[in-house]
């Protein structure tokens, strides 16, 4: 009998001929997530098993597995020989000692001499012998003992299913560049694209000395939390200070944010192309703030050719907050390191800016050289 954690994967079974590729990426991601913990990762008929780990690492392994996209569910249990004695010995360990229970057998090995119903009954009877305070309830049991009879004379015995993060293995759906601020939304947007298998890298715009280093550190912290899911290891930053000053000095105040966002998109596209990203990702949600109207998004999209993915576009703030809490970024996002960026905020930002007006105002600036200058401030913070 061997102590194991059983991992079942989510959508990979949908992928016909690509299946081998998806599985390879998935197992590499699993290995990466378990870096630093002694273990063995094995394939076993459509499942993965983590074995040869120390008991005190089990919880940490489970925590990490729960964050790997592509994991549908996982269970802590035992891998044993398929003879009755071994199965009962393992079942005794995962079975509750009081309350109601049932045995639920899945017979993958169709040549096994007993049927599922027979196994349920026989193993159930042995468990009742071992724990006299137990009662059987096949409809709404409090506990359950699962037997998974596999080919090759091996059986998996476990007591519960824990839900995984689902989605697709990160790295199987291309590469995107996330525009990450210190707020609540953008980390959630990055999480959602990673969940669909996208490799996500991060770009943060700062306006030092208007913004402070603590604000940047906060973004690094957010990126690190997000990286538990995405596996990305660094944050890119670019200064937009000079651009903001120029806009502030020369352009209509109500367009400040609109114009800045167009610059951010241009810079992001340049960096995306340089780093092999195939799209931009933002945390925009329709109508959330003045710049996140359809007109605002249209004006930003107009300056780039890469697709801009906005996974939160149809989400309410509340829904985003719920997700941010689940991901673990919320507490950091709400830390009060807001910055002096507000000196540039107009009192009445344009909600539905006309493209002709935007372009006229932007014409007052040397767009190309400002973008060039900003790209030149690119820094990479590894973590």
């Amino acid at each position: 009998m061997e102590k194991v954690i059983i991992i079942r994967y989510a959508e990979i079974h949908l992928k016909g001929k690509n299946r081998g590729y998806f599985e390879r990426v998935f197992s590499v991601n699993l290995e990466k997530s378990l870096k630093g913990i002694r273990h063995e990762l094995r394939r076993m008929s459509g499942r993965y098993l983590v074995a040869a780990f120390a008991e005190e690492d089990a919880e940490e392994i489970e925590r990490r597995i729960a964050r790997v996209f592509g994991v549908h569910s996982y269970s802590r249990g035992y891998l044993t020989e398929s003879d009755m004695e071994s199965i009962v010995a393992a079942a005794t360990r995962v079975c509750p000692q009081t309350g109601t229970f049932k045995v639920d057998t899945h017979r993958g090995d169709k040549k096994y001499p007993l049927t599922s119903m027979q196994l349920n009954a026989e193993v159930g009877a042995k468990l009742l012998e071992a724990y006299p305070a137990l009662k059987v309830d096949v409809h709404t049991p409090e506990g359950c003992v699962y037997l998974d009879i596999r080919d090759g004379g091996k059986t998996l015995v476990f007591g519960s299913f824990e839900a995984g993060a689902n989605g697709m293995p990160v790295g199987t759906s291309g590469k995107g560049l996330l525009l990450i601020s210190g707020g609540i939304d953008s980390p959630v947007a990055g999480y959602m694209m990673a969940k669909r298998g996208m490799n996500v890298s991060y770009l943060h715009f700062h306006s030092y000395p208007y913004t402070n280093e603590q604000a940047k550190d906060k973004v690094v912290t957010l990126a690190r939390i997000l990286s538990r899911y995405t596996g990305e290891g660094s944050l890119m930053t670019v200064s937009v200070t000079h651009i903001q000053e120029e806009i502030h000095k020369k352009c209509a105040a109500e367009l400040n944010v609109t114009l800045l966002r167009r610059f951010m998109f241009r810079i992001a596209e340049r960096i995306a192309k340089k780093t092999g990203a195939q799209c931009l990702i933002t945390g925009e949600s329709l109508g959330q703030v003045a710049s996140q109207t359809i007109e605002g998004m249209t004006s930003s999209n107009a300056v780039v050719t890469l697709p801009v993915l906005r996974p939160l576009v149809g989400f309410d703030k509340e829904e985003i907050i719920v997700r941010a809490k689940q991901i673990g970024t919320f507490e950091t996002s709400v830390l009060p390191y807001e910055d002096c960026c507000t000196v540039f905020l107009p009192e009445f930002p344009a909600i539905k800016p006309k493209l002709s007006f935007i372009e006229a105002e932007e014409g007052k600036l040397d767009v190309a050289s400002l973008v060039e200058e900003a790209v030149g401030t690119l820094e990479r913070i590894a973590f």
Partner: protein
Amino acid sequence: MIYLDNAATTRPLAGAVAEAETYLKELYFNPSARYHGGAEVSRMLSRAREFLVGAVADPAEFELIFTSCGTEADDQAIFSAARRGNAVTTAGEHAAVFESYKALKNRGVEPRFAPILSDGRVDEAALLSLVDEKTSLVSVVHVNNETGAVNDIASLAKKVKQKNPRTVFLSDGVQAFGKIPVRLTKEIDFYSVSAHKIGGVKGTGALIRRKGCTVLAPHIFGGGQEGGMRSGTENTFGIACFLHAAQAKFALLRADGERLLALRERLWSLLDHALFTRISPEDGSPYILTVSAEGLRGEILQRELWDMGVAVGTGSACSSKKPFSRVIEACGYGEKTLYGVLRMSFSPETTAEEIEHAAEAVNAAVRARREA
């Protein structure tokens, strides 16, 4: 780097660090240990206690409790003394006192805040009018940490006791101790001090208390150190450092004060008066000059100046809802002044040359931003 943020913290004196090293590397013994090494450390603590009290008060009347910082000293005094009725303080206090007073409300004690004048000193008449027969505590900061204004605590304490002799009087002396002449009178019950504002290290403070005042209660219980008033093994290297720094500062207190007063005024004369409003009073601490670059953001200037090699303080933190100083606001200034506050604070290590360079940088940074 020209360091003009000494009111925030000072660079530890080289001699003080050397002293600390001795107590980290050689004399690391627990002062409560009953062998020779322990006794030796314990004797150093006694010397420190004696010197630090003696520097500002009569050791027959006053004694000292080592704490982890000035804030701890303030808090212990406040929550020990303000047990009933009301407690009075000023709008110009450091957060260590101000926030503790706000917390008193939850303990059934009414906090009362006296207004301050435009230079940061407390409005004496207003303060005294808040004191009545139910006042258990009055706290007045000695040197206002944001403007440098000096409150006459001896006279205030006397007037408070005349109105209600049972009222306990506390003064936060963190920006005064080792910088301006201090003599604690019999009307002052508690005085809080800190090591890292005078060349010691962070993590060491003390509460000086009048022996006749018996309200003090321990907030940390344990092995009974500090006469049972503050348990926990003493920060011996920090205290050794504190002792050394205090000895150095008190030896030259008057000479340093006079020199820094001249430097402070020199700095003010070099600043472009068309760009700045002066907030610090002329009769305030020689260690602090606070000005405002009207309408600009102090925090942004602060970072630009850092990049130019000059470290200064501000009255603001952009993080709070009101991105400017509560204390300077209480002085009665408008928003434009409040946003632009810069605090330049000195130490005896500050040189005339540094002042010249700093003035140039500060003028240049503000001019550049005005033109931007």
